[in-house]
């Protein structure tokens, strides 16, 4: 007689989190990670579907059922190896990927209950490995070829790691003083601890990659000059140029771009002022304009820095928010107020040049626009003012322009993104590009996916070159 199958649990194993009261007073990670019992219990929920719809939803096609099976059997070392066959930064992806739109969106379990929490499982095995020290297995023969990578964000780091593993000499040029791109300057400590990003960067250095910080390409060297010294170049400079609203009062004191706010807080550790030198000012009433990850991160940083009232002001409605669902939930638990269908018209200053209020207008949703989302339309006559003493503008970022301005012959779109073929090849021979600089602002995993493809194309190019 066969054993009766244990009943499949419909509900996901909840993630242990810091209490909302507690966590708004610190910058420690909110989600604390599964225990061994919890991770196995969550892995048990996986049905091991033959067609594995989850894998189709994953931009880098991690063999999800296989690594989950290994977790079930507590074979964690093998599980992480399985993940890393396809994804070189799993500790990061497990924390910041929008799984609910990717692998988990198509998970079969989602039809009868909660989808399997694939991201949390991925996070567990990568943390398990890191706590034991990342090991380098392969040491390839050198090919004698040299590649310059511009920008140390997820796209650049992925290319660097993949090419180093193939034996190429790789040098990364990064303008900031630390590698990681948005992972280090934008995403806050409480969502992605910096020690994780640092460990990944250390691992890539161990692969033999040289990282040159404080090197702004375009000013220190042009791409043309790099090509004199290297056999190929990859541009992964991201979309870091903050967009402003171009409405009156935007340059008042107390009005930040989300990038300024987040760079001060995360890269420069202003939350530890005055132990760290970079200052930040956060008032009592903070309004964050926008509805994406950047807006959500700014909001939650503002709360932790002591703001009494933090509002998200978003011109569309909840359904259109381009954010990880988990982070909206976290922000609401922490007391963030969401003002939907509202848009600022102008900022009003006091006699010292500081913002004191914001004139807003209510919006309604009209016909769908190019992005397929319903276009917000102002409702005339619905203007009102909101008292604020800090405003953070998080309405999007456009491509960093310095390389495009200083590279002759590089084909660029009217939005400032670099034109490439599907493998990242640009209009200049030997120059490849990928990540947000090609797609406009997107996700960590799509930048990594682009990096993977570009690395493959660069390798083929180098090996075909005499």
């Amino acid at each position, binding site marked *: 007689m066969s054993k009766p199958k244990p009943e499949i649990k419909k509900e996901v194993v909840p993630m242990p989190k810091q209490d909302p009261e507690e966590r708004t007073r610190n910058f420690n990670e909110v989600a604390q990670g599964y225990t061994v019992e919890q991770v196995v219990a969550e892995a048990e929920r996986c049905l091991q579907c033959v067609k594995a719809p989850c894998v189709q939803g994953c931009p880098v096609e991690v063999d999800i059922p296989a690594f989950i099976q290994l977790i079930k059997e507590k074979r964690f070392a093998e599980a992480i190896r399985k993940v890393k066959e396809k994804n070189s930064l799993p500790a990061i992806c497990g924390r910041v990927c929008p799984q609910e739109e990717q692998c988990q969106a198509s998970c079969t379990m989602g039809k009868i209950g909660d989808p399997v929490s694939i991201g949390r499982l991925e996070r567990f095995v990568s943390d398990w490995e890191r706590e034991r020290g990342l090991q380098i297995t392969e040491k390839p023969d050198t090919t004698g070829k040299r590649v310059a990578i511009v920008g140390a964000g997820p796209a650049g780091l992925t290319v660097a790691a993949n090419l180093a593993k193939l034996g190429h000499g790789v040098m990364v040029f990064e303008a900031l003083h630390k590698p990681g791109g948005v992972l280090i300057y934008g995403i806050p400590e409480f969502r992605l601890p910096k020690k994780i990003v640092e460990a990944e960067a250390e691992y890539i250095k161990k692969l033999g990659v040289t990282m040159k910080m404080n090197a702004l390409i375009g000013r220190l060297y042009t791409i043309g000059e790099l090509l004199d010294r290297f056999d190929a170049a990859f541009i992964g400079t991201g979309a870091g140029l903050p967009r402003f609203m171009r409405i009156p009062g935007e340059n008042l*004191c107390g009005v930040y771009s989300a990038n300024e706010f987040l760079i001060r807080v995360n890269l420069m550790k202003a939350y530890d002022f005055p132990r760290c030198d970079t200052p930040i000012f956060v008032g009592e009433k903070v309004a964050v304009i926008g509805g994406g990850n950047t807006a959500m991160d700014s909001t939650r940083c503002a709360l932790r820095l002591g703001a009494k009232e933090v509002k998200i002001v978003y011109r569309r409605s909840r359904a259109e928010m381009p954010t990880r669902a988990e982070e909206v939930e976290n922000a609401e638990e922490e007391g963030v107020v969401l003002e939907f269908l509202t848009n600022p018209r102008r900022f009003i200053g006091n006699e010292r040049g500081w913002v004191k209020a914001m004139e807003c207008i209510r919006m309604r949703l009209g016909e769908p626009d190019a992005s397929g989302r319903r276009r917000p339309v102002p409702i005339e006559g619905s203007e009102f003012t909101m008292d604020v003493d800090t405003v953070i503008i998080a309405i999007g970022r456009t491509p*960093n322009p310095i390389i495009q301005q200083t590279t002759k012959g590089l084909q660029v779109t009217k939005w400032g993104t670099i034109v490439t073929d599907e493998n990242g090849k640009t209009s200049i021979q030997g120059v490849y590009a990928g990540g947000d600089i090609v797609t406009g602002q997107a996700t960590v995993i799509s930048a990594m996916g682009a990096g993977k493809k570009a690395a493959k194309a660069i390798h083929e190019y180098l090996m075909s070159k005499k």
Partner: protein
Amino acid sequence: MDQILQGLREATNLHEIVTKRELVPQINLFEFSAKETAAKTKPGQFVILRIDENGERIPLTIAGANVEKGTITVVCHEVGKSTKQLGTLKKGDYILDLLGPLGKPAEIEKFGTVLCVGGGVMTAPLHFQAKAFHEAAHKVIGVIGARTESHLIFEDEMRNVCDELYVATDDGTKGYKGLDFLKELLKKTKTDRVIVMGPVVTMKVVSELTRSHGIPTIVNLIPIMVDGMGMCGACRVTVGGKTLFACVDGPDFDGHLVDFEELMSRLKMFTPQEKLAFVLQEERGGNL
């Protein structure tokens, strides 16, 4: 040992202070080893330094570069926590980070007669430009100013590269008292271009004076900056009604179009925090 140090320096990108000289109290000249930066530097550009792991990013205008030696020179006025800390460093010490050159180089074209006005600490980087104009065979008229005689810097250096040099102090202890004499100077001398580097008020006053004469006037704006490479917008300034980023669109702008009032107000954004950091540092006896 030297070799080990050299290797370490290259691996960690540390930058050594090869010269430090006090010009006047609280204003120091530093020469940093920064080979790659030196090779690319042009007058008008700046660097961003970080002293140590907890340090903030300190923008300083480049006052000279020596390609053979692989060094750049900056002159720094101690006005708060970070600049004071920099002032405590000695020859042979290292700083953690140096990024540059940043910003667009100054335009050194054939203009004719150029009037270079420098105030306070910014006289030093102004000299770097005046020298370039001089070497490009321009007629250079220099005006340098400070609060009082004992705060004047770079007088001899400026004299060497200027066809005429005027000195002014706020209190009249040396040369002209204030900048009013510029009115007369502009009347009697045909000037094709004016460059102003110094306190915001100086740039504003000079721009007002030259406006009626219709003389193109370039001001060097130094708003608060964070990254210095166009990613934060902290340095935004309004020029001709448009918002521009001083770190990538500047730092040089048309003085007749700049909104100086806004710039002055934005420079005070972090004053309470800066004061706190300064007071805490003083309490610790300046030791960090």
